[in-house]
C-alpha cells in the first residue's frame, strides 16, 4: 500500500518568545520557503539515493516567486538527476496535504515511484499583529512510495469556500478575519466533519486513534478541537505542542505534526492527520514499521536554538523595520544557469589524477594542473570544521557578521558568511567548530532571488 517511506523536517535555529509562554521559530534574514524546503528535503532523503526521486511537490503559501516554479529550483538544488516531475501547490495552508494526496494518487497510478512532498512557509504579518505573534517558520517533508513502512490507508477531503487567511498579490502581509467567526463557523466544524468522514469511511471510532496530528492556527483552537473530538489530550494527540514551541508554520504545520507523531510511533499505531484551509482533509495512517528516517527531524532541530532576546533584533530579520535603501548587486541568470551544478547543486570536483577535492567546479586542477579530469562530488551533506573567521561590524541584518572559511570532509575549503552564527560567543576557541552545509538566500540582485550554499554551526 502507498505510504510514507521516510520523513524529515527543518526548524530555523532562531527563536522568539511567544507570549504568554512558549517560543516560536524565526527564519533568519537569509531563509525563505525555498531554502527551508531544501533543508527539510535533505533531512527526509538522508540515506536515500536521491536519483531515485521522480517527482517533487512543493507546498507553500509563501513561494518566493509568484511566477517561476519553486519545485524545479528545489529539485536542482537537491541535485536530482532523474528528470523529476515538479509541481508547486500554493495558495492554501491545506496545499501540503493536497500535494500529499496528489503524490499518493501518482504512486497508486504507477506514474511515479518515489514522490517527495515538501511543505515550507515563512508567513509574515504586520509587527505585533496576531499573525506576527503566532507564526513560526519551518518546513517538513515526506517521501511517498508504494510498500512503505507507514501505510496511508484512507483519506477524506472536503473543499469549502471559507476564507480565514488571505493575501492579495500586492499585499506584503497575511490578513485574517475575526477569530471567533473562524473558530465557530469554519475551523471547528470543518475539521470535525473531515475527521468524522474519515473515521466513518474506515469503519473506526475516535477511540481507535493512537495519535491525532491536527493542524490549528494556534494552541487555543487546537485545544478546543481536541476537546470537541473527544480525544484524550494527553494520550491521543501528537504535535500539538509545536504550536507553543514552534508556532503556526502554515502549510508546513500538518506535516510537521505528522513527523512528530511518526518520531514517537510504534508498529501497530493508527495515526490520523487533519489539515485545514479552503476546506479540510483527513488521512488515516497505519504504522507497520518505523519509517526509514535518518535525518534530524523535529526532535533534532527543536532543541538546537538561539534565542532572540529583543524584539528589535527580530524586526530586521523579517524586514519589518525598513533599513536604509541599498542598491543590490547585480546577478546573472545566464551565469547562474550555466553553473547550476555548483551554485545550486553544491557540487565540487575531485581531480581524478591527484585526488584533490576543490570548490567551485574547476576546469584545471589547482594542485596538479591536470585539465578536465574531474568527477563531481556533492558537498551538501559533507561535515566540516571551521578553519578561520572574522566578525565584521558593518551594517547587516545580523550583527556582527561572521565571515568564515571551513574545511569540508575530503579537504575542500568553503568560504561564506557563517549562517546562524552566535557571533557573541565566537572567539579563538571557535576554531575547529563543527559546521554543516545549509542552503540560503542572498540578496535579490537584478530582481531575482540569489540563492547560495553556506556553512552553519552543526545542529541537532
Amino acid at each position, binding site marked *: 500500500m502507498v505510504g510514507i517511506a521516510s520523513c524529515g523536517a527543518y526548524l530555523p535555529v532562531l527563536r522568539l518568545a511567544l507570549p504568554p509562554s512558549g517560543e516560536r521559530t524565526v527564519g533568519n534574514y537569509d531563509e525563505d520557503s525555498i531554502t527551508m524546503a531544501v533543508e527539510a528535503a535533505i533531512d527526509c532523503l538522508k540515506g536515500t539515493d536521491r536519483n531515485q526521486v521522480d517527482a517533487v511537490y512543493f507546498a507553500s503559501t509563501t513561494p518566493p516567486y509568484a511566477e517561476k516554479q519553486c519545485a524545479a529550483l528545489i529539485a536542482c538544488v537537491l541535485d536530482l538527476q532523474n528528470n523529476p516531475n515538479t509541481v508547486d501547490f500554493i495558495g492554501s495552508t491545506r496545499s501540503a496535504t493536497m500535494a500529499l494526496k496528489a503524490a499518493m494518487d501518482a504512486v497508486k497510478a504507477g506514474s511515479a515511484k518515489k514522490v517527495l512532498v515538501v511543505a515550507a512557509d515563512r508567513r509574515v504579518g504586520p509587527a505585533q499583529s496576531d499573525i506576527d505573534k503566532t507564526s513560526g517558520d519551518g518546513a517538513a517533508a515526506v517521501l511517498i512510495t508504494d510498500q512503505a513502512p507507514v501505510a496511508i490507508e484512507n483519506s477524506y477531503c472536503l473543499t469549502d469556500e471559507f476564507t480565514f487567511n488571505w493575501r492579495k498579490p500586492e499585499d506584503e502581509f497575511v490578513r485574517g478575519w475575526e477569530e471567533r467567526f473562524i473558530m465557530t463557523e469554519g475551523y471547528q466544524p470543518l475539521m470535525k466533519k473531515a475527521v468524522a468522514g474519515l473515521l466513518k469511511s474506515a469503519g473506526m471510532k475516535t477511540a481507535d486513534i493512537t495519535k491525532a496530528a491536527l493542524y490549528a492556527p494556534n494552541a487555543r483552537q487546537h485545544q478546543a478541537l481536541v476537546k470537541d473530538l473527544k480525544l484524550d489530550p494527553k494520550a491521543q494527540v501528537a504535535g500539538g505542542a509545536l504550536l507553543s514551541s514552534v508556532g503556526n508554520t502554515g502549510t508546513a504545520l500538518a506535516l510537521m505534526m505528522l513527523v512528530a507523531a511518526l518520531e514517537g510511533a510504534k508498529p501497530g499505531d493508527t495515526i490520523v492527520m487533519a489539515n485545514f484551509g479552503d476546506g479540510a482533509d483527513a488521512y488515516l495512517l497505519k504504522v507497520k514499521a518505523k519509517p526509514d528516517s535518518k535525518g534530524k527531524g523535529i526532535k533534532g532541530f527543536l532543541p538546537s536554538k538561539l534565542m532572540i532576546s529583543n524584539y528589535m533584533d527580530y524586526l530586521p530579520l523579517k524586514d519589518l523595520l525598513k533599513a536604509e535603501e541599498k542598491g543590490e548587486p547585480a546577478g546573472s541568470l545566464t551565469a547562474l544557469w550555466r*553553473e547550476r551544478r555548483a551554485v545550486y547543486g553544491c557540487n565540487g570536483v575531485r581531480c581524478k589524477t591527484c585526488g584533490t577535492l576543490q570548490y567551485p567546479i574547476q576546469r584545471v586542477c589547482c594542485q596538479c594542473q591536470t585539465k578536465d579530469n574531474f568527477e563531481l562530488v556533492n558537498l551538501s551533506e559533507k561535515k566540516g570544521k571551521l578553519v578561520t573567521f572574522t566578525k565584521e561590524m558593518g551594517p547587516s541584518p545580523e550583527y556582527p557578521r561572521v565571515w568564515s572559511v571551513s574545511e569540508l570532509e575530503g579537504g575542500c575549503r568553503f568560504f561564506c558568511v557563517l549562517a546562524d552564527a552566535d557571533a557573541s560567543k565566537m572567539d579563538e576557541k571557535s576554531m575547529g567548530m563543527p559546521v554543516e552545509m545549509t542552503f540560503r538566500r542572498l*540578496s535579490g540582485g537584478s530582481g531575482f532571488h540569489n540563492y547560495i550554499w553556506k556553512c552553519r554551526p552543526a545542529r541537532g
Partner: protein
Amino acid sequence: MESIKDKVAIIGMGCTKFGENWDKGANDMIVEAAYEAFEDAGIGPKDIQAAWVGTNTSGKAGFCLSYPLKLKGIPVTRVENYCCTGMDTLRNAAFGVASGMYDIVLALGFEKLKDLGTGGLVGQAGAEIAYRPSIQAPSGTPGSYFGMAAITYFQKYGASREHLAKIAVKNHHNGALAPKAHFQKEITLDQALNAPIITWPLGLFDCCGVTDGAAAAIITTKELAKKFRPDPVYIKGLGLSADTMHHMYKPGHDYLHWDATVMAAAEAYRHAGITNPFKELDLVGIHDCFTITELISYEDLGLCPRGEAKNYIDSGAFEIGGELPVNTDGGLKAFGHPVGATGLRMAYELYKQFQGKAEKRQLKDPQIGLVQNLGGHPSVATVAILGL
C-alpha cells in the same frame, strides 16, 4: 629567464596629495602627478613615446590617460591587477623600455574613490555581495579576506593585537612626517587598541583609509638615464605572481602566509641577486592595507623567519632608525589606498629617499629598497626592487 636588473631607470616621479580630494577629479590628479614627473625629469608630454595607466575601477582603456594629458595618439595601455595595479603599471612600462621598443615612457596610476558616496571600497557597505559564478568570485570584503589570517596567526605564533597596534603606531608616526599623506597624525598604542572593532580582531587603526590619489613615473633606458639627471633610480628586480585559487578555497591553506608574495619576492630577488633581504635592503615599502598584512608580509618577503615577526616588531627593527625601516612615509595606513596609485606612490617614497629628498623621514644614504603589493583575496602580488 632574464633579469630586468639595471636595464631601465626612473628619471622622474610625481605624486599628488593623497586624501579626500573633494575638489579634484581624476583628470586633475592625473595632470598633477604627470606634470610633477615631467618637471622632475626635465621633459614635456611630447617626449613620451608610450604610456601605461593603472586604475582598478576609476577608468577604462588607455583613453583615460591620453584624454586628460592630450598625448596626441601615442600608444597607451590600461593595466588592472587588483591592489597591485599601480606597481604592475610600472612593471609593464619598464618592460616596454627594456624590449627596446621605446626610449621614454610614462607609467601613471590613479584612483578616484571619494566620488562614489560610500565609506568603503567599491560595493555596497553591508551588502552580502552576490556570488558571481561566471567569474567564480566569492562574496566578502577586504577586511574579511585579511582579518581571517589574524586569528590563525595569533594562535600559531602567539602574536596579539598589540603587535598589530605597534605597526599602526609606527606607520602613523612616519605618516606624520609625510606632507602628502592623507593622515598626518601620530596615534598611541592605547588609541589603536581601544579603537572600535571593524572586522574582529582588526580595529579601526588596523585598517587603511579610503582615499583619492595619483602617482607617476618616467622611465628610460640605462644608456639615456644620466642624460636627464645625475641620480636616476634603477629597477633591480620585478616579480609578479597571480595565484591559482582564492585563498579561502585553496585546499590546505594555513592562513599564515600568502603564496603570491612568496613567489613574487623569489622572482624579484632572483633578478636583483638578493639572498639576505633583511641585511641587503636599506628600506622597504609593504602593502599595509591592514596591519596583519604588513606583519605576515615581513615573513613572506623573508625579512624575518616564520613566527618571528612579533620579536622584530617589539625590537623596533622596522621603525625609522631601526635595522630595516618599513613604510617610511607611513604606508597605506597614512596614505590610504587609491588602488591604482598605491604601488607607484610607494615607489615614489623610495625614489625620494635614494635622492636624499625625503625631508624629515630621510634615512642615512639608502642605496636599495623593495616595494611589495598584495591584492585580491589576496590572490596577486608584485615585488619591485629599486636602487641607485
